[in-house]
């Protein structure tokens, strides 16, 4: 090999290196396999679609974006390792958050320690936001503990007093997120696992405030539980008019529904914490009728966001997602898409990928000058929780997930009540 060839090779290498530096690299650890794989795979689609669309629009500040995705197998330790690798080995410019509170909680510490902006698509448990992290931004309406208020507000606003459910059975997956929703509904104390201190006392709880008596509660382990019929039979025997199933995944929501259908439970109303996904409808068919689910996103919500520096509406997202993946999107794809929009706007707003500057820019958002996404506007309080952003209540009717509450945001469908069996 001559000296000329060596020099030429070095020059090409240098050019390639320069080229590599001229891109924005973002890391995302997702549960593509394991217990959260259904949601994880959709998060991957949401992130990837967003990054591709940004690149089609010329990148961020003229630089193309490259997304590195790793499968954390739904395992917290693996998720931690992968984010550490993104930071220390890949030296990514920014990160996207992972799915589920169980993974977000430990990952939050790593990203805070390294000064990275942590845009969380999932991880609604309040105790994640009370650790004093200054870099955390939640891309759903509010902490899971407050979801119950949307349920009881809906009952009180949309249902005549004599038709309202007066008793409730609350069954809960022993999961970070589900436990958080339970705490709000039942009025439990939210405890910081680090020091045992009370983060917030949710007493008396949204159900008690609404005059709904809890007649049955049960908790099942997050993994390995199969005795759904026994559980459903106990719920039925309680005679509760409102059945609340706080599941950690759509798969569990399917199991609960099929079991309630088998035992022929006949509540007035059913609310789930998961079940917006097409897979839920596929697994439950007609039994899904009139089941209520809270959601952070709805296809019909007329939100106007920004992408690649251009207007990008929720309807655009629905159309392009279907074009790309052939399926109708659900919130598991929409929320990460909004995360990606948020990070793009933060980089543009900060003028660089300096995470400290990005964080400052995000914290400076207000409802008048928010981050604009397909999930609507976002501005955060000092904990990293969105300000004045209600959850949406949706209901399965005729195989369609209809938006029913709140009624003052957009056009809503009438609430189907009472539920006519399963």
């Amino acid at each position, binding site marked *: 090999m001559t000296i000329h060839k060596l020099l030429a090779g070095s020059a090409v290498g240098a050019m390639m290196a320069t080229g590599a530096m001229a891109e924005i690299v973002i890391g995302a650890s997702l549960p593509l*396999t394991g217990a959260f794989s259904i949601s994880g795979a959709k998060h991957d689609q949401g992130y990837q679609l967003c990054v591709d669309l940004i690149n089609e629009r010329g990148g961020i500040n003229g630089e193309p974006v490259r997304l590195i995705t790793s499968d954390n197998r*739904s395992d917290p330790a693996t998720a931690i390792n992968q984010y550490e690798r993104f930071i220390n080995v890949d030296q990514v410019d920014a990160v996207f958050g992972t799915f589920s509170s169980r993974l977000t909680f430990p990952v939050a510490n790593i990203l805070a320690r390294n000064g990275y902006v942590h845009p969380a698509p999932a991880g609604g448990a309040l105790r994640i936001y009370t650790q004093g992290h200054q870099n955390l931004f939640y891309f759903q309406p509010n902490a899971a503990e407050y979801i119950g208020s949307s349920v009881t507000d809906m009952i009180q606003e949309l249902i005549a007093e004599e038709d309202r459910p007066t008793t409730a059975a609350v069954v809960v997956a022993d999961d970070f997120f589900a436990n958080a929703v339970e705490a709000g509904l039942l009025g439990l104390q939210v405890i910081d696992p680090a020091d045992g201190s009370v983060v917030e006392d949710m007493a008396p709880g949204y159900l008690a405030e609404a005059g709904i008596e809890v007649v049955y509660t*049960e908790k099942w382990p997050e993994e390995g539980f199969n005795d759904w*019929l026994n559980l459903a039979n106990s719920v039925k025997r309680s005679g509760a008019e409102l059945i609340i199933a706080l599941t950690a995944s759509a798969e569990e929501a*399917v199991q609960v529904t099929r079991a309630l259908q*088998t035992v022929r439970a006949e509540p007035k109303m059913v609310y789930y914490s998961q079940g917006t996904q097409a897979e839920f409808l596929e697994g439950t068919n007609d039994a899904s009728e009139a089941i209520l689910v809270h959601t952070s996103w709805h296809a019909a919500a007329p939100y106007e966001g920004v992408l690649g520096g251009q207007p990008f509406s929720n309807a655009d997202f629905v159309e392009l997602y279907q074009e790309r993946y052939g399926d109708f999107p659900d919130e598991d794809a929409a929320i990460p898409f909004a995360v990606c929009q948020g990070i793009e706007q933060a980089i543009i707003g900060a003028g660089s990928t300096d995470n400290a500057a990005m964080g400052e820019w995000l914290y400076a958002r207000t409802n008048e000058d928010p981050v604009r996404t397909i999930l609507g506007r976002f501005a955060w309080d000092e904990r990293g929780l969105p300000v004045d952003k209600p959850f949406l209540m949706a209901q399965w009717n005729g195989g369609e997930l209809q938006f029913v509450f709140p009624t003052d945001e957009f056009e809503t469908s009438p609430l189907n009540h009472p539920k006519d069996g399963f």
Partner: protein
Amino acid sequence: MADILQILILGLALGGVYALMGAGLSLVFGVMRIVNLAHPSLIMMGAYVAFWGFRLYGIDPIVMLPVAMVILAATGVLLYKLVFEREAKSAKYSEMTVLLTFAFAMVFEGALATAFTNTQRVTTPDYAVDAIFIGNVFIPLGQLYAGIVSLVLIGALALYLKYSRFGYAIRATTQNREAAELLGVNVNFVGLVSFAIGLALAGAAGALVSFVFSFFPSKHWEWIAILMSLVVLGGMGSILGTVVAAYILSVVAAFVGFFFGATLSTLTFFVALFVVLLVRPQGLFGEKPELA
């Protein structure tokens, strides 16, 4: 009284499904000393066969069951010839197969996820969410059918093992591989057929599981611990023991769930595993291990 009867029925109904899920695992260990950690992922494969038969052609999952058995048996033959036959005489064979089948479980999971995505699936024949009500007590039809089919298959296998000539050979190999070989049994062929039968049972269990539980590729990790509990309680390698253990643990778990909560219900299987290993390592029907 109705409560007790109801819990008993639900426990037995679940036990029928678990029995078939564990039977193939037990057979393969009994004959081949293969601790097949990939067994639940193979059950998953059977579930996908039944699911797609139902989804694409409307074929009932119980009708698809033989198809799932044939496909899984063929997979078994292939796996055995390519992988498990080679080191069958190794003194460390069982230990090796633990790692090997663990790797296979991950490979199968990845292959299934690639082929069918991680989307949850469930086969939805009408009977899967129906029940017979007798007063306040109900019998879930899906689990009843699954339990009946399961018992028929296990019964047929038991009769085959007991009365057929090849069944003698399988039992002889299970009891003492070296002695069987000395007496002219082609233990390698016995291993091949047993492995194929074991996987066929996984296929059958998958077809039944497809309408009893929802499933997705990584779901198998939740099943392996429960199935190992059944096999250990029953006695490693004893199909009868696995069946009995499946019914016992399912009924006990149902009662524990009703009286002490769902969390402890699942714990029943693992407590049983620990207790058996401490008190009676050979399980209910297994042979006492010889001291070296």
